């Protein structure tokens, strides 16, 4: 090997050595290889670790919101209070507001305590009533309006316990904190414990969290995601139906058909730039274009869906174009060579091969659209909405909320119970996301191949 240096030509001499022992250089290269591989593994682990950490913190904060504490009471629907006229006239009964129902509950509570032999120990009847959510009165009134004939009878209700009591059984409220807490006292907590052992206070799965609408700041225990889930579903339907076809169509045109000229350059730069536009600016656009100009209603999923579509499009387009670009030209040649039109070559061969990339773009784009709040801020969807939107398609035009909006709203509230709700909502959001992506992931796996 001494002549290696003489000329490049003579460098082409054999270098005999055993394969079983690694030479210095190979060892170094292998070490570099191992390092590189480890770096990759570490990167994956970092990603997974952060994910696990975040999910862990979300789950530990939020899982508890799927269970809820209830107080089970037999309530006498006193005709003297609910229907003074005695004619069971719905209009008459409706005159009694929720404030009129509160005493019934308070009384039922006292009766139940007496019946089970639970003593208040210095907790007044009013304070005992505070263990029950303010939502209870509304539930009761709703029930009575729906069943006027029940007035005068005694009905068993599972009423929501107040947020602090619920928090007590979830570890958020403790005896120490209750001492300082203006909204609950240790005596009340002790009473709750007694009620629990008496079987009046029960904990079970919280369906209301998925079906109930949002509730105001005074009733965190009643707040649910019903409207938000509907709103998000509506918006995602719109986003998916519009952005995927539009995005893929635009990418195909730009990547496969568009002539190389200034105009296509313009479109190309535009799309890349739209990806960098902050989402709140899309909200400004939505307000100007869809609400003020086109006259669509405020707070409506249709506007939200359109705005999110515009926001998602660049992501999908960029991903799709990259995927199309990576399909080798020989595949196109092969198809064109047997007399396929360009359109056929693309739709029959190129597009299926680009599918994994397209689906990835869609997953990422939709994930972002699903979790976005800022643009909704400007089109009135970051709002307190309690009425369910109608079924589609009219429902697209009714006011609705969305999952990320609910998360955002709840993290802004004063009552700490909302933090748990927000984490619960995030879990729902993630489950939503996983479900939505699952089909895409399965499809992607089907299309993935090397050539």
């Amino acid at each position, binding site marked *: 090997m001494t002549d290696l240096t003489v000329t490049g030509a003579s460098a082409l001499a054999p270098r005999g050595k055993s394969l079983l022992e690694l030479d210095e250089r190979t060892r170094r290269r292998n070490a570099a290889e191992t390092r590189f591989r480890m770096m990759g593994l570490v990167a994956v682990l970092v990603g997974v670790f952060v994910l696990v950490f975040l999910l862990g913190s979300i789950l530990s904060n939020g899982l508890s919101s799927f269970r809820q504490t209830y107080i089970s009471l037999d309530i006498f629907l006193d005709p003297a209070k609910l229907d003074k006229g005695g004619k069971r006239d719905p209009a008459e009964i409706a005159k009694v507001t929720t404030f009129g129902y509160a005493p019934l509950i308070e009384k039922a509570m006292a009766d139940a305590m007496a019946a089970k032999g639970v003593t208040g120990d210095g907790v007044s009847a009013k304070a005992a009533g505070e263990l029950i959510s303010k939502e209870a009165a509304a539930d009761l009134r709703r029930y009575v309006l729906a069943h006027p004939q029940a007035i005068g009878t005694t009905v068993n209700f599972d009423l929501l316990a107040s947020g602090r009591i619920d928090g007590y059984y979830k570890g958020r409220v403790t005896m120490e904190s209750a001492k300082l807490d203006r*909204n609950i006292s240790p005596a009340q907590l002790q009473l709750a414990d007694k009620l629990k052992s008496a079987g009046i206070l029960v904990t079970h799965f919280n369906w209301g969290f998925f079906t109930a609408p949002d509730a*105001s*700041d005074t009733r965190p225990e009643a707040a649910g995601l019903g409207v938000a889930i509907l709103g998000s579903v509506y918006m995602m339907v719109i986003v998916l139906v519009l952005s995927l076809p539009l995005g893929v169509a635009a990418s195909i045109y730009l990547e496969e058909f568009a002539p190389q000229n200034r105009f296509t350059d313009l479109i190309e730069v535009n799309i890349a730039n739209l990806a960098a536009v902050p989402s709140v600016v899309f909200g400004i656009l939505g307000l100007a274009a869809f609400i003020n100009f086109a006259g669509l209603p405020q707070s409506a999923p249709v506007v939200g869906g359109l705005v999110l579509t515009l926001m998602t499009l660049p992501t999908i387009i960029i991903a799709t174009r990259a995927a199309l670009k990576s399909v080798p030209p020989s595949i196109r040649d092969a198809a064109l060579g047997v007399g396929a039109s360009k359109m056929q070559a693309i739709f029959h061969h190129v597009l299926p091969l680009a599918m994994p990339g397209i689906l990835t773009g869609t997953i990422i784009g939709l994930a972002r659209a699903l979790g976005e709040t800022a643009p909704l801020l400007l089109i009135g969807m*970051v709002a307190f909405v309690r009425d369910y939107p109608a079924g589609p398609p009219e429902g697209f035009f009714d006011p609705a909320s969305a999952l990320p909006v609910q998360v955002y709203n709840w993290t802004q509230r004063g009552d700490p119970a909302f933090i748990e709700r927000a984490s619960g909502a995030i879990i729902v959001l993630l489950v939503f996301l996983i479900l939505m992506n699952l089909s895409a992931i399965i499809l992607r796996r089907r299309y993935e191949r090397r050539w």
Partner: protein
Amino acid sequence: RDQIQIAGSSTVLPYASIVAEAFGENTKFATPVVEGGGSGAGRKKLCEGAGENTIDIANSSSRISKSDIETCAKNGVTEIQEVRIGYDGIVFASDIKGPKFAFTQADWHKALAAKIVKDGKLIDNPNKTWKDVRADLPAQPILAFIPGTKHGTREVFDEKVIVDGCKEDGTYDVALAANNNDKAAATKVCAAIRTDGVAVDIDGDYPETLARVDANKNGIGIFGLSFYQNNTDKLQVATMAGIVPSVETIASGKYPVSRPLYFYVKNAHLDVIPGLQQYVEFFVSDEMAGPNGPLAAYGLVSDPELKKTQEAVKARKPMGPLN
């Protein structure tokens, strides 16, 4: 459109949603849709014109301005009702485990102002701990989480704490002298907050301030009274000029840092949007906004002149020009 649409101040939002919820429960009308988004944005939306596409009510944590009224008029919104719903107390609170604080406005000025007076001269604020500010305060580093400059609360803080404190501790006079008796310039000097990281602007809401106090146990945050009342197990409130903030002390005017809250109703919508008039009346009814109502329970300081408001609302009396 069947539901009332409301937008505006995020300070008023909790109260408005409590009322909206009760309104939806107790009447045949749909529950109003209540948006946050800030007083400015709310009033802007209110003034965009009359019609189904525009909101009916704007919540506001400060009085509407002349320019807003002009915009309104330009867009055909000529009659607006002003409804004052009560007062919002602004409190100073720190971590529950830390030392107790009793402040005066002057303390805050000395702690946070960019320039303070020392030996009759304006100097850059050298204070590092509260003890430097006043000897009987704890020796805790100064760290304050104050609302960002877009918050209505900040305005009140600047005016009623910093500038008042500035006058109290004599800096104002020195500044006045230095600026040839230009009051505006002196006020500007007074209100300038130091930028060395001691005063941290919070763009988010009170929960963010709370989280920051949680992460920085030395920090003192500025909160709304209602938020504090919901978190008394984590926060301890400081007195201001010897007064403990509470619904009572604020209502009586003893506690100095508070501000009125309003909402503005577009009269043109009153006969068009179902339930609007009822909602407005419901909001200011004793059952809701009275001293024993749910709003007061949540921390709204009830307006002593509620009766007047109720009458005005019944009469749909539009507000006159601002004075």
